[in-house]
């Protein structure tokens, strides 16, 4: 075991410690050095000077700290700086994602863009809008919600209120596994069943079915968690009054947990709204308004982004529209998320007394 040797001059039990500003000083020093080195070597990429600076910081602080404070403290400092580096490394791309979407998205995003379809506007021309895509997304997600919510909530009720034995265990396990099904596989399943075997056409409804496969497990899991939070005393009180079990569930258990269940459903909606792959396979896409989700191809926001990107031919107009649609999509999902979390906080079930 290495330990800091006590210096004879100081009658302190603690080893020498570096001042608090030490980390900041080394950080500033290594950023300056990193910039200097990359300027001297003629490097242009931002990644490179940042990398040099990060390496300088980690090794610099280890070296100095090992000299002054001892190796254990130095290792602690290295771990701290690595954790900070990990954090900064992750923040850069995530911040860039949000920033670029905002910056490039606001260019063409206006009332016209939201209320007009692409129609006959070519992908390489400016103009057009996303009305048809918004309409398609709302209808497909709405249909998917209509399918998944009853199935999901009832399954969760089964698991929490009735489920004993092997069936419940199997359902729990497969619901967990189902959360991991890649969206494209859900799309392929509906494709093989609905379109290839039953010979139905591409439609918004086909997409909605695939989306509901992705949504059901999320609804089941979140509803299950919420039902488990309902205190047993409430159930017992109701049953003791002679209320049948099904009315207990409908009138006592569900109203108590309705806030959390709503939150879960909204988060699930937010999750499937951005799904592209199944929609691409099953809804096919169109530039025109199709308000009937049960026949003929529709558009959808995520697919619109993909098609604008893929068919842009490298022209800026299509990219601008893709970014604006991406911003709309993110805004929609974030609002759903924030409202859902707001509801969760507002209507949190009261556990215990």
């Amino acid at each position: 075991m290495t330990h800091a040797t006590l210096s004879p001059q100081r009658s302190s039990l603690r080893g020498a410690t570096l001042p608090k500003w030490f980390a900041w000083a080394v950080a500033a020093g290594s950023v300056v050095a990193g910039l200097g080195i990359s300027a001297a070597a003629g490097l242009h990429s931002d990644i490179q000077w940042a990398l040099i600076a990060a390496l300088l910081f980690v090794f610099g602080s280890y070296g100095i700290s090992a000299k002054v404070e001892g190796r254990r403290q130095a290792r602690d400092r290295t771990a701290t700086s690595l954790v900070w580096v990990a954090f900064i490394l992750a923040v850069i791309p995530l911040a860039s994602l949000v920033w670029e979407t905002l910056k490039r998205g606001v260019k063409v995003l206006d009332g016209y863009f939201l209320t007009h379809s692409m129609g006959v506007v070519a992908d390489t021309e400016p103009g057009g809008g996303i009305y048809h895509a918004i309409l398609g997304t709302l209808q497909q997600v709405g249909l998917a919600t209509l399918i998944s919510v009853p199935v999901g909530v009832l399954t969760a009720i089964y698991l929490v209120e009735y489920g004993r034995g092997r069936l419940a265990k199997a359902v729990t396990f497969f619901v967990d596994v189902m959360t991991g099904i890649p969206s494209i596989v859900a799309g392929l399943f509906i494709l093989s069943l609905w379109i290839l075997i039953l010979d139905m056409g591409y439609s918004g409804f086909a997409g909605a079915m695939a989306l509901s496969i992705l949504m059901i497990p999320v609804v089941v899991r979140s509803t299950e968690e919420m039902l488990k939070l309902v205190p047993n005393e409430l159930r017992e009180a109701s049953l003791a009054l002679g209320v049948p079990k099904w009315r207990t569930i409908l009138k006592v258990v569900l109203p108590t947990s309705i806030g959390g269940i709503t939150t879960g459903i909204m988060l699930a909606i937010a999750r499937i709204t951005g799904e592209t792959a199944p929609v691409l396979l099953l809804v096919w896409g169109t530039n025109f308004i199709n308000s009937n989700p049960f026949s003929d191809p529709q558009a959808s926001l995520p697919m619109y982004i993909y098609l604008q990107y893929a068919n842009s031919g490298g022209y800026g107009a299509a990219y601008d529209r893709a970014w604006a649609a991406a911003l709309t999509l993110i805004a929609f999902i974030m609002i759903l998320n924030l409202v859902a979390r707001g509801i969760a906080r507002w209507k949190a079930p009261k556990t215990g007394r």
Partner: protein
Amino acid sequence: MDIKTHQPTVPPTPAAPAPAAPRDKRAARGATRPGDRIFLGLSRGSGIFVLALMAAIAVFLTYRASIALSENEANFFTSFEWNPSGVPPKFGVAVLAFGTVVSSIIAMAIAVPIAVGIALFITHYAPRRLGGPIAYVIDLLAAVPSIVYGLWGALVLVPHLEGLYGWLDDYLGWTGVFEWNDGAPRSLFTVGILLAIMILPIITNVSREVFRQVPRMHEEAALALGATRWEVIRMSVLPFGRSGVISASMLGLGRALGETMAVAMVLSSSFDINASLLDTGGGTFAQNIASKFNEATVTGRDALIASGLVLFVITLLVNGAARMIIARRKEYSGANA
């Protein structure tokens, strides 16, 4: 801490006779009301529906895949070709399997250490007032759809990677793995980086939950022995959280394996395998389905379904394993992350 005045527990209603156990189960069930039976039937039916759905996915994918495979003239697992509409149809998933595995490995190698770092940062390093908001923001980032990551990756990340590619080529090009022939940086390596960014939030969220559950006493015991913060983490936090981090990584892996749109938008794909990670080409299961679907003939679609079945089985195994690990520790679950 748990010192309470201990009172002898009074047995519940000692005077009353113990409730008579139902003599026979059928009699007890006969007493249930019709409403109860309907409701039980409905909810059990939904549970069974979910199971049936999983079974149906497996059955129908296998059925269509078998049609394609019976027409296939090449070895499905080793062939480098993808020509299902040719005469005779020839296709194989070797290239896709290679690309999927390689890009996922790169993603995991980048994302897991960083995600564990962020999770530690939130739980143990960040100032208390910052930790909450950061966790919240990362929660929100998990909700950003993959199509937006794809757009960002293709139009922002790719141009920024040229410098890194040149640097890797200069210093590590001699290994052959990082040789770059000045093509657009739309290779499996870029895909790996993008996937890493995409799965960061979920791995971080699950790991954070695990680290937060480390018994406070363990950490305080280590601190009392004079451990530095890093030693506390190494001795009490990481051993406690190991299985959680493993399952979090496997959840992330499951997502990386099945990611479609982002890969399709970033990768410039082709049906060959390059020794160098930085050269364009290759493909992944999901990306191949999305890119080839539009022009596919009937056999082509069935061939894509066959490759989707392989992906389904792989993700099933990965997720099943992750769930098994989580199930051993019931307190946390990644499903609500």
